Every structure is written in C-alpha cells, then in structure tokens.
C-alpha cells in the first residue's frame, strides 16, 4: 500500500494492458474504474430487465396469478430502483462520464482518483446489499419512491424496507462522492485553453449534473435517516401520530427526486449533443443556448418537486406555483430539441447505429416531454397521476430518452473504450427491434392511462377494456428483451473479435479521439493546449470549415502529437483503501440489521481506510507538483472539493433545520423547546467560537512556518471541541434524565435530538480529524508546504461553527417562538 509512483515513458500501452485480479481490485485509473462500473451496470441492466419482463408477464392477461401480490410488488419496486440507481445513473455517470471526462478535458485522471475507485466499490456493495433480498424473498416492496407511512415498521415489518433504506444510503454516499469528484475535475482540471465555453457539451451536461447531485442527494439522505430512525429506534417522523405527517417524506423525497430526473436526463442530453454533430459533420447548433438551457433546467428543477404531489392537497397557491415552474422547464427543453434538429439540418448524415439511436432519442424524448407538460397542469394531473399514463410518460423519458442515449453512446464510444467496433448490422437489428418493442410496449400505456388503469396493481379484472393493450404491451416487451439479447451478443462478439479500430474511426471532433483506442493509462503524452471548441477537429483541420475529406490531415495531427516527446508522467499508485472503505460501509449496513457491535467493526474499517487514504493522498499531492503546474487553475482541487462538499452540507442542514421548525410547531404534548438550557448553550457557543479562533491561529502559524504554535493551536481547537461535546453530552443527559424526554416521546424530542445530534456528530468527526492533524504536527510531519491540509480541516471546522450559529439562534434563542 506504500505509494510508489509508477513511471511511464516511451511506449503507450493501453490502460487494459496490465491485468491481474489485484490490479483491478486496487485500480484507481478512471478508465478501469469506468469499466468496472460498466460491467456491473450491464449486469444490473439485465436483472432490471428480467424484473420488468416478470411484471409485464403478470399483466399480460386479467386476473393473472402467476406472481403473488407480494412478489409482484417486489418486482416493480426493484425494477424501478435498479434501473434508476444501478443502471441509468452508473452507466451515464460511472461509466461514460467517468471514462470520458478526463479524456474530453485533456486531463490525466479525475481530481481524486482514490475517491473515484471508492465510489465504485461503495456502489457495487450498496447494490448487492439491496439485492440480497433475493435470497430471502425479501426484496424492497414499497415502490422506488417508498412512500411513508407504508414503509414504517408497523406496515412493513420485514427486512425488505431495511434493505432499501440502508442500500440507498450506501448508494447515496457513492453518488455524492462521484458528483463531488467530477465537479472538481471539470472545473479544475481542464487543460490549457479549455475554457468553459469551449468544453464539449457533454462536459457541460456533466458539470450541471454534478451540481445537481451535490445539492439533491442530501435531501434524500435526510429522508432516509428519518426513515431509519423510525424503523430502528421507534421515532415518529412519518407516522401520523404525535402530530407528524407522512407528507414530510414526500417533500424530502421529491426535493431529491425531481433533480434526480435531471441527474439522469442531462448526461443523456450531453451524449446526444456529442453524437449528432459528429455524424452530421457539423458543429453543435446554438452551443451557448444549449449550455444556458442546461443551467436553467437544473436551476428550475429545484422549484418543481411539488408537481409530484398535486394530489396530496397542497392547496391551490402551491399547486399553481409548482405548475408554472414545471411548465417553464419546457422552454429550455424545447431549445435543446430544436437545436438538435438544427444541428442535423444541412449536415451530411452518416446513418450509423449511434446516429439512429440519437435521432430516435429526439422523437421519443419529445413525446415524453410533451406528456410531461400535460401533468404539469394540476387538473390534468389529478386524472393522470398514478395511472398508466404516468408510466408511459416516464418510460418515454427514461427509456426513450436516457436509454436510447446510452445505447447510442455504446455504439459511439465503444471503439474508444475497447478498441473494437460494434457490429453495425446487429446494431441495426437491435435498433429497429428496440424502437418497435419500446413504442409497442409504452405507447399503449397512454391509452391505458386514459382508460383509467392505475399503476402498481398486480392484477386487474376482465371487462375494464384494458386486456387488449396489456397483452399487446407484453408481447412488445419480449421483443424489447430480444433486442437487448442482440445487444449482448454484439458486445461479446466485438470483444472477441481481433479487428482493431483506429484512434479516430468516426472523424470526430473532441479530444478523446486524439488518443489511442483504447487510450494509454496516462491518457495524454503531453498536455494538450486547446484553441477553440471542437478541439480535435481544429487540430485536424485547422478551422471549423473542414477542408473536405483529408484523412491525412488527421494522421498528421496525431503524428505531430506523438512526436512532441513524452514528459515523464507520474501516475498515482493503486490502493486497497477504497475497497476497504466500501467494505467498512457494507459491514456497517449489515451490522445495522444484525448486531450493533458489527456496526462498530465497520466504523473501525471506515476510519482506518480514511486515515490511510489521507496519508497516501498527501504523498500523491507532492509527487504531482509538476502536473499540477499544468492543470492548476489557481485553486487547489482539494480545497475546491471541500467547498463543494460544504455547499452540499448546506442543503443537508437546511432539510434538518426546516424539519425541526415544522415539527416543533406541530408538537402535541410533552416537553417542548422551553426546556432548553440557554446559559449552558451560551457557554457552548463561546467555546465553539473560541475554537474557531484557535483554528485560524493554527493556520496562520503553519503558514508562517511556526510548527510548534501550530501544533499548540490545533490541540487547543480539538480540546475546545471536546469541551463543546462534553456540554452537549451533559445537555442531552439532563434532558433525558431530568426532563424525561426520550427521542421517541414527541416531535420536539425526535427532531431536536436528530438535528443537534447530527451537528454534534459533525463536531466529533472534526475533533478526530484535528487530533490526527495535531499529532502529525507534533511529529513534524506538517510542514509549511502542507498548510493546505490545515486550511481544509479549518474550512470544515468553521462550517460546523456557522451551522451552530444558525442552530443556536433558531433552536435555542427562538425557543419560545411557536412558528419559528
């Protein structure tokens, strides 16, 4: 595990060249991690497809009892959860984006290669954890949206929902870290000349997607934590007792859930924006408009979550507001669709399979988008929601949109990833079968919705007028299954074929095609300097007006590229810690469902791997000083990562704090905020403020090279943190023992303990961090050049401090304000 940087010079072996199980288990190369993602998501694609076929088979005829109600409910729940969290997101983000981001922006790897590997291992363990339900016939069974209070222990006593809740929490960690990682990579690691407005549109899409991930997942995490507490501790966050309401879950879930739709949609938009120009031999139309449309969609997506809840009775004002914001999203989406058509218009279309899928995407996605406009109107939504019309709508978006884009991306980038082409003839078969199967399966669902067939029913009686279309859809679904089998055959055949493909088989426009197929481990021999949009096209042809088909120009460009001589490239060494970290998280999840002591074992693994990775990373940071010189955009990636994380934490705490305020007002009995001890917490506040002062003094000391005082101030900060924690322990014990306020007792108790306890946990993590740092300083390992480590820890510490400023004011000082 010692970090020995590898030196690569001279030849350019492909990133796949070095094999070995250990190599794959410890890899931190973004391309290999991407391949791991790709393989696992393909596996889950077929699992999810199998579940879908079971669902369709059950519905083929009325009064079918092939599957029991229970099994059917598990199948549709897992179909949705699998396709969203284990297929579409990991294929788009984990596979394609992971592989392509560094190649498209001219970087050697992502900003945090270890965290990238870690994301994958956490993802695969989380996915397997949730799918463990297969073994006990106890898969999650409350729908992918898991509406409370059906998910409460009383109504779902089995382990089904536990697997779902904990599995999603684990998957959330993976996604959040990927988001953070790719965000920093795109902002910070672009090669010289690659300004934002010169990035490939896929990079824009991923940039916006990662922001969405960072700011949407915290809401889901909060919702899942509440559910966890309800199921394991016996609190009542979503039980309609004690004044709580299950509607809270719906709000938290959809604050996450609607941006989630765009987390899946925007990468697909990006993929299409890459494929269309290449096969039209024209630049993307309306680049600036396309980029701004992405940003606008992302921004609007946070203000529309209520359109999933029109039928819950939010009141006319909220209904109207959410309706208008939802409809507004149609405007930027329209801009995108028309710009794609304009991209194709006047081009010279090469009708490859990738192009077929991309063109079909435009039409299918438009249908999905337009039916979306329909239920953005609440009156219509009241007829359509929870009927098959909605099923038709989101399959047109998710399958007709996202899956078509993903399939197109496979045909387009597969040669780059594997060095082999996919067979066009099989591809054409697959395309037509997919189009027919897809439209045949999902278009009639519009009719079924209009005819009033509700979603998520495991059986239906005859005589409702639903029989014909259901049988028809099932037949088409099998056609779709055949299409995917052809796809599988195509993938396997291509991997077994000997015929290698050139670096640039499509005469493409973006940087990833300027390197080998498959690319070398270090991506680029020399760091490229970019002069405009469509960087590789410019390299080949010198201008945007391509001078006819001059293939030698391309050859010349890459030859010049190769001759420029190779700098010695240091690549970070492989590491076991990512795998260890993920294992720790998995053990914690298992422990939550079995024995508490196992949780501590998992937490121990987690701690060891984090600290281990931290020290590995420090070495890495020094080794790549040289590459940082090229990539540096004025700020350090780690610092930017910390700030992005803190932004994400803002949303996390906003959800916790608003829950506290809402539930405090609904508290029905027992102790309330009046029992809070102001003198004690005032003292704690001063303690935490002082610790922040010590923290900046430590930073100032290390920055001027004063190691002794830096160590002293660090110990001081951590010590004051301990005093704060002591105060909190005293406060909680007093509330519990003197006021007899347990977490389960009333709404005030559960939200207060959760909010302040979560903050306390943050403080505790900070204290551990600071002590590690202080000991490092004491041992002389924290030199002036590493002051950044102190600065980052400081950012975290001050953030914890400002959260406390907010909590102190809203929770303590406003304790008597009922509607605060």
């Amino acid at each position, binding site marked *: 595990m010692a970090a020995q940087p590898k030196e690569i010079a001279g030849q350019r072996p492909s990133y796949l060249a070095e094999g070995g199980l250990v190599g794959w288990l410890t890899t931190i190369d973004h391309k290999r991690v991407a391949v791991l993602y790709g393989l696992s998501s393909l596996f889950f694609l077929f699992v999810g497809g199998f579940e879908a076929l079971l669902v369709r088979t059950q519905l083929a005829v009325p009064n079918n009892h092939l599957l029991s109600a229970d099994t059917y409910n598990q199948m549709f729940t897992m179909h949705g959860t699998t396709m969203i969290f284990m297929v579409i997101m990991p294929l788009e983000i984990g596979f394609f984006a992971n592989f392509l981001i560094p190649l498209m922006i001219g970087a050697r790897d992502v900003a945090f290669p270890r965290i990238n590997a870690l994301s994958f291992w956490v993802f695969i363990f989380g996915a397997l954890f949730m799918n463990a339900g297969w073994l006990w016939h106890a898969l999650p069974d409350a729908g992918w949206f898991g509406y409370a209070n059906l998910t409460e222990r009383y109504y779902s006593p089995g382990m089904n929902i536990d697997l779902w809740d904990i599995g999603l929490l684990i998957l959330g960690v993976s996604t959040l870290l990927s988001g953070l990682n790719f965000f920093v990579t795109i902002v910070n690691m672009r090669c010289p000349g690659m300004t934002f407005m010169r990035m490939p549109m896929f990079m824009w899409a991923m940039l916006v997607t990662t922001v969405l991930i960072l700011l949407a997942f915290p809401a889901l995490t909060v919702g899942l934590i509440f559910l966890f507490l309800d199921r394991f501790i016996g609190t009542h966050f979503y039980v309609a007792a004690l004044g709580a309401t299950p509607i809270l879950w719906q709000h938290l879930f959809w604050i996450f859930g609607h941006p989630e739709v765009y987390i899946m949609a925007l990468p697909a938009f990006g993929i299409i924006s890459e494929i269309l120009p290449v096969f039209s031999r*024209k630049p993307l*139309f309306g680049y600036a408009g396309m980029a701004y449309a992405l940003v606008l969609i992302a921004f609007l997506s946070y203000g529309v979550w209520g359109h999933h809840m029109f*039928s819950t*009775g939010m009141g006319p004002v909220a209904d109207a507001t959410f309706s208008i914001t939802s409809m507004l999203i149609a*405007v930027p989406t329209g801009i995108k669709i028309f710009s794609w058509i304009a991209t194709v218009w006047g081009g010279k279309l090469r009708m490859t399979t990738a192009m077929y899928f991309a063109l079909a995407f*435009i039409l299918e996605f438009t249908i999905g988008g*337009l039916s979306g406009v329909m239920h953005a109107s*609440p009156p219509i939504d*009241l007829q359509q929601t929870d009927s098959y019309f909605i099923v038709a709508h989101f399959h047109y978006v998710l399958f007709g949109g996202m899956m078509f884009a993903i399939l197109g991306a496979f045909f387009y980038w597969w040669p780059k990833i594997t060095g082999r082409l996919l067979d066009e003839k099989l591809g054409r078969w697959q395309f037509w079968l997919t189009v027919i199967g897809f439209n045949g399966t999902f278009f009639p669902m519009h009719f079924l919705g*209009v005819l009033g067939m509700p979603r998520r029913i495991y059986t239906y009686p005859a005589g409702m007028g639903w029989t014909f279309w259901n049988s028809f859809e099932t037949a088409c679904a099998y056609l779709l299954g055949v299409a995917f089998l052809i796809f599988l055959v195509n993938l396997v055949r291509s991997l077994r074929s000997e015929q290698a493909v050139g670096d640039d088989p499509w005469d493409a426009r973006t940087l990833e095609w300027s390197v080998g197929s498959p690319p070398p481990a270090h991506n680029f021999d020399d760091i490229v300097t970019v002069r405009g949009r469509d960087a590789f096209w410019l390299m080949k042809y010198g201008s945007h007006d391509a001078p006819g088909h001059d293939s030698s120009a391309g050859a010349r460009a890459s030859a010049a590229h190769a001759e420029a001589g190779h700098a010695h490239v240091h690549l970070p060494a492989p590491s076991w810690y990512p795998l260890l970290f993920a294992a720790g998280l998995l053990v914690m999840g298992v422990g939550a469902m079995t024995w508490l002591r196992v949780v501590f074992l998992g937490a121990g693994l987690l701690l060891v791997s984090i600290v281990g990775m931290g020290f590995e990373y420090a070495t890495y940071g020094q080794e790549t000083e040289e590459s940082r010189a090229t990539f540096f955009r004025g700020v350090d990636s780690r610092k930017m990562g910390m700030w992005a994380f803190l932004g994400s934490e803002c949303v996390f705490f906003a959800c916790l704090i608003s829950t506290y305020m809402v539930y405090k007002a609904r508290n029905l009995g027992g102790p309330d905020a009046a029992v809070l001890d102001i003198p004690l917490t005032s003292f704690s506040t001063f303690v935490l403020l002082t610790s922040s002062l010590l923290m900046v003094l430590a930073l100032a000391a290390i920055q001027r090279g004063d190691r002794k005082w830096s160590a002293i101030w660090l110990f001081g900060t951590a010590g004051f943190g301990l005093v704060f924690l002591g105060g909190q322990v005293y406060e909680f014990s007093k509330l519990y023992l003197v006021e007899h306020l347990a977490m389960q007792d009333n709404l005030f108790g559960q939200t207060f303990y959760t909010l302040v306890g979560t903050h306390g946990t943050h403080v505790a993590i900070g204290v551990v961090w600071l002590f590690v740092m202080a000991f490092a300083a004491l041992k002389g390992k924290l030199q002036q050049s590493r002051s950044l480590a102190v600065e980052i820890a400081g950012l975290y510490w001050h953030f914890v401090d400002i959260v406390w400023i907010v909590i102190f004011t809203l929770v303590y000082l406003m304790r008597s304000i009922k509607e605060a």
Partner: protein
Amino acid sequence: MNRRFGARWLLWCALLLFSGATEAAARSYPMDTMAPRSDLAELIQSVYVQVTLWDLLVLVVVIVALFLAIFWFSTRFGEPGEEPVQFHSHMGLEVAWTAGPILILVLITVPTVRAVFNTQPYHWPKEALTVRVIAHQWWWEFRYPSLGAQTANEVHIPADRMIHFELESADVIHSFWMPALGGKRDVVPGQINQITLVAKVPGEYYGQCAEFCGASHANMRFRVFVDTAEGFQRWVADQLKPPVMPASGLASEGARIYQNAPCAICHRVKGISGFSKQYEGGFRGPDLTHFAGRSTLAAGVLDNTPDNLATWIQDPQTVKPGALMPRLGLKGHELTALVAYLESLK
C-alpha cells in the same frame, strides 16, 4: 424485399388496430377518464383537451422538422460532395423557438390556474351533502354524518347536488379516484383532504385506490352509484332501517354462527352485533348491516353472489392477499348457513 416487408407490417398493424377497435366497440370502459359525468370531471377534461391539442401541434412540428432533416440530408451520404456549411447559431431561430413555447405555455397556464382555484374551493354551500370517506387497507368506508347512514365499498350520492367528500385514512396513504366523476385525491393519514363536485348523470361508476398502499393495493376498488334525488332518499331510508332478524331456517342458524364466530369483532350488523358504541373512526372491517344490498364484495373484487361469498369467507388470503380477515375454518353446513344469513341482510 423491403417493400414487401413494409406491406406485411402495415397489414399487421391494420389487423391489430381493427381488433383494438372491435374491443373498443364491444366493451365499455368503466374507468375511462375522458367520459366526464360531473362538473369537476368536465372542467378537468376541458383543460385536458386544450393541453393535448397544443402538445400535438408541437409534436407535429418536431416530427416534420426531424424527418425532413433526416430524409433530406442523409441521402447525400456517399455522394462525393462539399462539406456541409459549418453554421452553428442563428439568433432569429433561437429567439423564435424560445418565444414560441413561452407563448403556448401562457395559453396553457391561464386555464390551468383558473381550474386549480375553481376545483379547490375553501368554502362550499351549506346544502352540500358531506360524505366521509375513510380508507382502510384495503377497503373503503363511507359515512354520511348528516344522515346517520354508513356503508362500505359502494357509495351512493344524489345527482345534481353538491357533494363534499372528506377523505381520511385509517392507516397508510391511499388515493380516492372515480375517473368519471373527477380527478383523484390522496387520502393521507393525519389530514383531511376534500373533493367537491356535482354529479350530473345517474348511473353506476367505478373507482379504485390509486396510491400504492401495500400488498393488495390492486384489490381496493369501489363503486359509486349516482342516484336520482328520489332514488337516493329511498336508499338512505333503507340504510337507516335495522336489519330484519331472520326468524327461522338456514339464515337464522347463520345469524347465530355470525354472532359466535369472530366475525362480530370486526364487522357490525346494526342492532345485532358489534360494539354498542361505535369507534370514533371506523371499524376494522366493513359494516355488514345491509350487506346483501351491495353488488360486490371484498372491495369490488368479487360479484356479490353466495358462491363468491363462500369462497371469500373460506379463504380471504387467496382473494385478497394480505387482507386482515383471517381464515375462520368454517366448512360445509356452517358456511352455507352463514352465507345464507349474510345474503339475507338486504
């Protein structure tokens, strides 16, 4: 070759459409959302149609543009020719396809917002009839607080009178949906949601729970009977009558079995069994006082016939997986007698 394949495909499609059309002609669509029978459903439909038409217009524009682009510009492939002009933006076009959708959205938003405020009134006239809907896993309880009547799984309402549904849940979230009479509303524990409507055409309408609510979500159906004013009066009067205690025969034997078996723990037959003081919020199982007057049993899952009733009592879990009603182990004569009694409760 290609053309023959296309022709066969067309023929196949035509056949399918034909059989679909036959089905449409031969059958009724009891859950059709496009056959409004109330003021609420009509209002919804008017917005529905407007938006659909705008959608279709946009769809046609996209389809035409896309297919023109594909057919005009892909044929050039293979021909030696000049590179396409590398144009990448056009201000006029971009402004047009931003402004166009905005205009359409404004046209959609106005009727939408109007309908939103019209369908969710804060106040309703005093003469409105209040019906309390209490959703249970997996059946519906209906109460008429002003009339003192109550029933289950089949609700009767008078036509041409404002009805105010108050929706409550006894357990998890359900959704109350009568497609012909209006949109759905979720039934959320801990809050009371409302639907206000005037049914216009007397008749029998189907309804179903629309929010996933557990194992037997699919088996949570109900019927709405829109009666004429007189018909409704008659029905209410019938409902308020105590049931006739069968004097002799199989049915009276059945009544004894009913009282001694666990049935009465959850089900009430007014004046004969059940709790003297009714629960504040409803019963665990449907009220059976006028059970024989209903056309379906087990929340719209089976037709109300003696055979079906026997099946249901013998094995509720097969008919409705997860149902709270246990298997009672009644057999042979006992079962027949119980069925006879229940079917006598007109």
